[in-house]
């Protein structure tokens, strides 16, 4: 296998792991709360579609690295996957229906689990950051969110919506 091929196989397997973890989370969610999104054959189709769209997005992101426009080259892979999925979902409602059979919150739990493990070795970096920046961080995060929310609220009001 060529190195490129091997890389794609690895991506494909990681994506498979990701959708498998989602299924697991949805299953546990059902045990905790039987009224949450049920696991049907549509859920499996939905997970397959999520896997496929993600993989297509990865390939597109790679191809776009060849484009000589910086903004497009630097556009994040996460964005390409959203665009791929959005375009294909606009083409067929079937995709939307299948993906919606996957519980939204069940998708988020595995991600944050892996995120938590990924920062494990950065916990020590905290000692190097000053408490002052920690205070500033609260206002920085709150600032962007509140200002955007205020403008959005005003905009929606003016739009009469």
């Amino acid at each position: 296998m060529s190195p490129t091929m091997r890389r794609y196989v690895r991506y494909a397997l990681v994506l498979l792991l990701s959708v498998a973890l989602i299924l697991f989370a949805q299953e546990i969610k059902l045990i905790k709360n039987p009224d949450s999104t049920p696991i049907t054959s549509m859920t499996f189709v939905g997970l397959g579609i999520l896997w496929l769209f993600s993989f297509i997005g990865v390939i597109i992101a790679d191809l776009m690295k060849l484009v000589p426009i910086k903004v497009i080259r630097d556009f994040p892979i996460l964005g390409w996957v959203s665009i791929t999925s959005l375009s294909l979902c606009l083409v067929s409602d079937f995709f939307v229906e299948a993906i919606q059979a996957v519980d939204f919150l069940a998708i988020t739990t595995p991600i944050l689990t892996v995120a938590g493990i990924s920062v494990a070795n950065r916990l020590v970096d905290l000692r190097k950051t000053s408490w002052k920046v920690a205070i500033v961080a609260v206002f920085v995060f709150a600032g962007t969110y509140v200002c955007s929310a205020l403008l959005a609220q005003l905009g929606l009001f003016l739009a009469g919506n």
Partner: protein
Amino acid sequence: MVKNFVYFLVFVLAVIAAAELIGIQTFSIGSMNISMLPLVFAIAIAMILALPFLRKGILKKIYSKKNVDFASKYLIFIMLPLMARYGSDVAPQIREILQVGWVFIIQEIGNLGTVLIGLPIAILIGLRREAIGATLGIGREGELAYISEKYTLESPEGRGVISLYVIGTLFGTMFFSIFAPILLDFGFRVEALAMASGVGSGSMMSAASATLVARVPEMESTILAYASASQLLTSFIGTFTMVFLAAPLQQFMYKFLVRGDKK
């Protein structure tokens, strides 16, 4: 190596199971309702067990260098199905979104709030050049790249942005999942809060929008559609907002705020 990975996998499953079994916990402080989602418990458990003094025996094997490296290298791929899910949330509502498209663009300017609110506070508590790095944006990869190009990461500006990056990575999702619904109690419309959730970090956006969904489940499709559309817009024009609006505004305000300092 394979054995190592088995530890990792079993641990991930155990954390997910624990987080999901804890479920959504809501408690109120005064008139505010704070909901904690399984995602908050998941990241909290995974981080707490990683504390250096706990890393003995099996935890040491779970948090082996290989496993932690695997998690950080492939985190972005683990996130991709979530991004694909957002496509299906936006698609059915694309018409409505385009109708209020200008509102989405206007609220992007709200991302200047990092400078407008963060910078005065930073100067007030005694930060100087670090404040440039710490308030330019929410300290994700975009700001990191810009600051390192302009000032290098060894400079005070660089230290500021790295500190914010570390804090954001560790606590950003938790912050937004708690903060977003608080604003709901302040009377903000859930649509506006959903739009504002596109702050430029996929996991922070997900945390903010997910808690909004938990609070207003009947609006789930609108919340997710607005949040992800706004996130997508931020990833397109966020760099421009930073370079052409946030950075000049920051320079102007910085000079004004530190004018009393001795040379």
